[in-house]
């Protein structure tokens, strides 16, 4: 403005706009470095997050639970029951599951809360392998997945489970699935938001009518297509 002197007396400094620009530059540049910093701090924030109800970001991933604690996987006692509308119900041990032909894939993981982890390497079993094992009856249209973390459950149609990158994963980034990621096995369908991928899986039930899962009962969409559901529009 015309009434403002160009130069200030020596006792006055234009720190305001300088401070604003420094903050904006620092904040905008953090779009590049926030991920690695967040990963570096994750051992600390992860512990703190568990203590106070998952308040803090943990690396690229956020670990959510609905009960406040994560189920513990015991390889000697864990079983995966596969039943419902099938010809041959089966109960698999961890060794039996991992002995099935293994599939590998690298895909992007999208959470409905807005975060994304790219280039996630999964190892596990294609659902068709399990279908061949138990032989679903013609009436079966969907599978209900039940978690050890009660009362979490969700479901996917057989058609969705036959998508080429749908998988029952038991390995993440070349290691056995860890407890926060749903050990020993979790459902992966990269085209849908993560809440459809039941973690700490213990039961698969083939059903005639697709039931509403835990989050669907709280208003989330049954078909959680990334970018095309839950208020997101392509």
């Amino acid at each position: 403005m015309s009434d403002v002197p160009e130069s200030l007396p020596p006792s006055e400094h234009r720190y305001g706009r300088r401070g604003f620009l420094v903050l904006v530059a620092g904040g905008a540049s953090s779009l590049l470095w926030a991920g690695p910093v967040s990963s570096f701090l994750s051992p600390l924030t992860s512990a703190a997050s568990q203590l106070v109800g998952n308040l803090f970001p943990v690396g690229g991933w956020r670990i959510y639970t609905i009960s406040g604690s994560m189920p513990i996987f015991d390889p000697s006692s864990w079983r995966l029951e596969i039943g419902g509308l099938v010809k041959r119900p089966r109960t698999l041990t961890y060794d039996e599951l991992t002995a099935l032909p293994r599939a590998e894939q690298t895909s992007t993981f999208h959470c409905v809360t807005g975060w994304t982890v790219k280039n996630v390497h999964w190892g596990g079993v294609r659902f068709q392998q399990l279908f061949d094992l138990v032989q679903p009856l013609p009436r079966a249209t969907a599978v209900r997945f039940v978690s050890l973390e009660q009362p979490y459950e969700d479901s996917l149609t057989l058609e969705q489970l036959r998508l080429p990158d749908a998988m029952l994963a038991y390995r993440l980034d070349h290691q056995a699935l860890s407890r926060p990621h749903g050990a020993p096995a979790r459902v992966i369908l990269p085209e849908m938001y993560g809440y459809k991928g039941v973690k700490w899986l213990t039961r698969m039930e083939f059903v005639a009518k697709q039931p509403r899962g835990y989050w669907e009962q709280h208003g989330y969409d049954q078909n959680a297509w990334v970018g095309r559901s839950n208020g997101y529009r392509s």
Partner: protein
Amino acid sequence: MATGPRARRLPRFSRTERALHWVHASAFFVLFGSGLCLYLPSLAQLVGRRPLLKDIHVYTALAWLAALALVLLAGDRRRLLADAREIDVFDDDDLGWLHRRGNPQGRFNAGQKVNTIVTAALAFLFTLTGFFLWYGERNHAFRLQNALVVHDWLMYISFFLVLGHLYLSLVNPSTRHSLSGITRGWVREDWALKHHAKWAAEASRED
């Protein structure tokens, strides 16, 4: 401190300034509340209705930006520019005040200047990261992996900033009269002389 109906009043914040403050404050609380319900599983579980909450969050952000623009367009821009200039300049008294030497202060003390600058930067960065979150869902080329992490960090910083702001304006006995300036537009002269001596002396002369 002198009190009572006879205490002189000094006009402190104009309608435009108060409108700007309350647009910002009310939007913050709606955005903070709806954002937490989207982000924290425990709250998401309690509230449910995710698409509705998401619409509330996004449309409040748009309404906030539109209301800020409206205040700038329809309000007293001369006054707002004067505020911006005042906040931009830190004199030796401001620096002394920040070093807790109790130097006399102008209409904005140095802490209020810092708060305003940080808040303006946060507003800009919230808008930037919020845009990437919103548009990244529609066009995955704009989906920045770190946008949500930064959006969350900004939320934590704002939360503690607002907490301190609320403490000083609502709880702390010696500063809470400042609330009168941003609600009714005036403050008592005796309070102003104690907390904003340079401005109060000038304002009293003009009065």
